[in-house]
């Protein structure tokens, strides 16, 4: 847990301080032929790609894009999921049935496939567009969890008691239901981060996500020349960054989940 947190903090610091620590301009493409596809060396610790760009600098700047896109997309997905789940769970009846059938429909199509179809129909997207796309395909799971939790919470005695003192419904929700959702959202959000990072990387690798020359961990990999084995450094380092981040985020998410597991929770 501590190690995972340290790894994550390291990546966040790298992302935030990218301009200060990157040794080269990630987009600079020296025209010299001799700078192409250089293996790791003192001048270029992660080597250079087929356009002579410094891979280390691209990985550092890629952290900004990859982590930024993932975090904002997850926040969007959580907000949407929480809102839709809360409405469904709170209102019940037909609202609930319709919301949950939409969720079922969305969950029945693999998310990658859905994303590919959507990007294919819209054409290349800006970073903002990718965030919206990832956010808008990420909410169904969250909304189902939130709906379940809301249905439990809204029948708690203290919610009834609050209503019986004249609390209007929206205030009952803000005061007594919403705080109960926070732990669940925290865990869901962390684990969602671990699925969104590789999703964005995959899309970018395929050329459907973040567009070059902007670096993201996914599209750096696609800049390897020829077979990946020929310029292994262009594939390995951004790949390692993705794997380390996902593992760290997943570890943290699992620990958080253990913390709020109902069996470990004192009964309210």
């Amino acid at each position: 847990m501590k190690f995972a947190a340290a790894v994550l903090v390291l990546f966040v610091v790298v992302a935030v301080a990218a301009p200060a620590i990157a040794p080269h301009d990630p987009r600079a493409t020296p025209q010299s032929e001799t700078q192409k596809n250089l293996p790791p060396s003192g001048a270029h610790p992660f080597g250079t790609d087929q356009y002579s760009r410094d891979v280390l600098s691209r990985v550092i700047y890629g952290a900004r894009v990859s982590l930024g896109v993932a975090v904002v997309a997850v926040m969007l997905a959580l907000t949407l999921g929480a809102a839709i789940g809360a409405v469904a769970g709170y209102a019940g009846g037909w609202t609930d049935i319709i919301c949950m059938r939409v969720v079922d429909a969305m969950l029945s199509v693999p998310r990658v496939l859905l994303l590919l179809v959507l990007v294919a129909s819209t054409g290349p997207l800006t970073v903002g567009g990718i965030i919206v796309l990832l956010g808008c395909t990420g909410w169904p799971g969250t909304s189902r969890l939130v709906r379940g939790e809301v249905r439990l919470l809204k029948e708690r005695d203290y919610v009834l008691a609050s209503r019986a003192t004249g609390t209007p419904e929206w205030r009952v929700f803000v005061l007594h239901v919403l705080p109960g959702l926070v732990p669940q959202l925290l865990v869901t959000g962390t684990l969602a981060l671990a699925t969104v990072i590789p999703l964005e990387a995959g899309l970018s690798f395929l050329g459907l996500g973040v567009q070059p020359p902007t670096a993201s961990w996914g599209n750096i990999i696609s800049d390897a020349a020829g077979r990946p084995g020929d310029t292994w450094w262009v594939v390995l380092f951004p790949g390692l960054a993705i794997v380390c981040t996902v593992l760290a985020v997943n570890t943290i998410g699992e620990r958080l989940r253990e913390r709020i597991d109902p069996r470990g929770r004192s009964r309210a």
Partner: protein
Amino acid sequence: MHDPESRCFHDPSAEAGDVTAPVLLDVRDLVVTYVSDAGAVRAVDGVSFAVHAGETVALVGESGCGKTSVAFALMRVMAPGARIGAGSRITFDGADLLALDERAMCDLRGRKISMIFQEPASALNPVMKVGAQVAEVALLHGERSKRAAWDRAVAMLDRTGIADAARRAHQYPHELSGGMRQRVLIAMALMMRPALVIADEPTSALDVTVQAQILDLLRDLQRETGMAVLFITHDFGVVAELCSRAMVMRAGRIVEDAPVDRIFHAPADPYTAELLRAVPRLTADR
């Protein structure tokens, strides 16, 4: 502990209001149905009764007879799937409760009618300071200053017999004992000095000694504020102790509505007599 015969010789009417006072709550043909996939159940099946201002009335009956459904219907706080029947009429203080919109009902709840819940452990939000939960009632009903609401909450907690109320108000429910939590709930219910308090088995979850303290507290507060209390219970000891009149409920209907003396000495309905016989006694008289 609860021997009704030894208790009912004291004169309950002296402390529990009188029936000549104006009618505060009038319930006619109340029907509550629960609709689920398995079908509809009539939990309350045509109940009619009145509560006079300042009176303490018991609604007695076994578990599942519909007592609590009556209470929630009076507050119009309905469980999912619960519906009040179309022919039902509830008149409170001259107003037709079932005709009020939700906004007017919110204004009424907690200010004119309030409710004390059965389980003090679960009726308080575990992640909110108890003082804030009491102060919230004042804030809902007109108090604008948070500071003043907090002070009123502390004063109210103090009035319900919580020692060191100013410090206790900053604590969370799990830091208080069951009896203290019930006092917090009472403070919430009585904050706005309502005309009617519905007490739904307020002592059932408590130890016997704490039960007695809470009953004493309710009696004192009732005398002080002149509120009417609808006491929902299955405990005839409590009925004899506090109430002037008792309504016996069975399977969604009121089978007997009479002064407590009569209930104990000359129950008119065979079910009432049976319920009374079910009360355990120390003195074996068979």
